[in-house]
């Protein structure tokens, strides 16, 4: 598979949202439900890594649970989404242009 050369050196189907000078380096992982002390919804967020093209909408909309890796792809906090973040999680899922962010149905 060949992609057009990217100015930031990362490879992928489209430029990462973050500019080369503004890469978010790996920092502390966003805290999951347990760490935040909120009630857990029992529903987890997942990324379909094939569909994800690093548009970064989810990182913008849900920084509480999702951060960017050095190439702009989302890293989702493990575990269940806290109840109070469920509306924001749904919004992030709906905003993903490639439908790559998934909220597991209730068990």
């Amino acid at each position, binding site marked *: *598979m060949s992609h057009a050369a990217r100015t930031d050196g*990362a*490879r*992928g189907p489209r430029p990462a949202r973050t500019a080369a000078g503004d890469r978010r380096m*790996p920092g502390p992982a966003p805290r999951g439900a347990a760490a935040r002390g909120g009630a857990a919804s029992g529903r987890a967020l997942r*990324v*379909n*890594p*094939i*569909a*994800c*093209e*690093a548009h970064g909408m989810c990182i913008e909309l849900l920084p509480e649970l999702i951060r960017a*890796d*050095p*190439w*702009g*792809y989302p*890293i989702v906090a493990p575990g269940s989404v806290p109840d109070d973040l469920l509306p924001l999680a749904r919004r992030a899922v709906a905003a993903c242009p490639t439908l790559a962010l998934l909220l597991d149905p209730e068990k």
Partner: protein
Amino acid sequence: MTTATGLPRLIPPGGPLSLADHVARYGPAPLGEQGGADGTAGGDLISEVERAGLTGRGGAGFPAGRKLRAVATAARTAGPLRSQAAAVVVANGCESEPASAKDGLLLARAPHLVLDGIALAAEAVGATRCYLGLHADAGELGLRLAAAIAERERAGCDPAPVQLQPVPRSYVASQETALISLVNGGPAKPTFVPPRPFQKGAHGRPTLVQNVETLAHIALIARFGADWFRDVGSAGSGLITVSGAVQRPGVYEIAIGMPVGELVRRAGGPSQQPQAILAGGYFGGWLPYAQALDLPVSDPALRAAGAALGPGILVVLPESACGLAETAWVADYLASQSAGQCGPCLNGLPALADVLKHLAFGRADGRGVTWAQQLLGLVARRGACHLPDGTAAFVDSALRTFAAELHQHSVSGPCARVRRRPTLPAPGHSWGAPA
């Protein structure tokens, strides 16, 4: 027919067996005996395979009985029409692990044992179509298998037709969802799960993907029963490809649980002063030679030690090679094998290969090691398949096993051994841009 220890079970001495010789040696496959009074053979093959504790021999080591039952259950319950529910069996004979030779040898020497396994598994899960995945450039082996399949069709001994499926030679092409994508007319690339193959696989049907050695074991368990299978070793017998610095590299059928040192002795002992062992192939891990010798050749024991059994691979690394350079070489190969579908793999694996080249051939400074360790965390479990996870585990084991070399390189620069050509196989691979 068998030696004192009951081995070999899978690969008969002498040339490949014709269907008639095969039946004379093993007896006919107990097909069409589902529900028969005989509790061991055919009566309930899935229960028998579960009781045998047979695990998949393609690398992941998933319990074969559980997989059979999941597909059989899905096939019974899926879809309103019988035609939609009928399962599919995909036998995996691609052997994409470069250091493995056992599947090719098994298919060449005991084709009918594998084909029996396919037929028995098809009957057990209710499959109406079967595929045997083989490398597209398998050449002579492909022709021989086509002849064996034709021989069985004339004899009318199989419940479902078997079709050869040519598979491109790439590391991820024989991952189970990639095989299914290929059978469905798509590219040989992994797909996102769920749906898992047992739910919706080839032709949208419940699909059993099983390594050819696993199927050969199933063919024997169907005949001789779970107790017979468990009678040898801690988990039956298994085919192990031994290579590297040994006198007689090759495929050995052993009782699982045999100490690594004994298997190395069986392969003629070291041909040069050994320093480390790679167990499990490129999704496995490095172990210091002295530590590896007393470990049992079994997946649980090798995993506990930080490696794996994978598809049955042991490579002995001689003292004359540089473990860091070998690891950089394999990491570079694995990065080249990314299907290019998932961002963390597409970006992370080349970055990991680059930092390893830096550690092996440049300066093994602390920053390089720290960045390598961060990259391991950034790629693991973030792809659709296990390529990033396996690569991360492999590199992680190298950073542990070759810690002394890392220190040496950091003090006095790359050792003289890095100039030696890498000994680990990487088909079609050459170094990319120098680090």
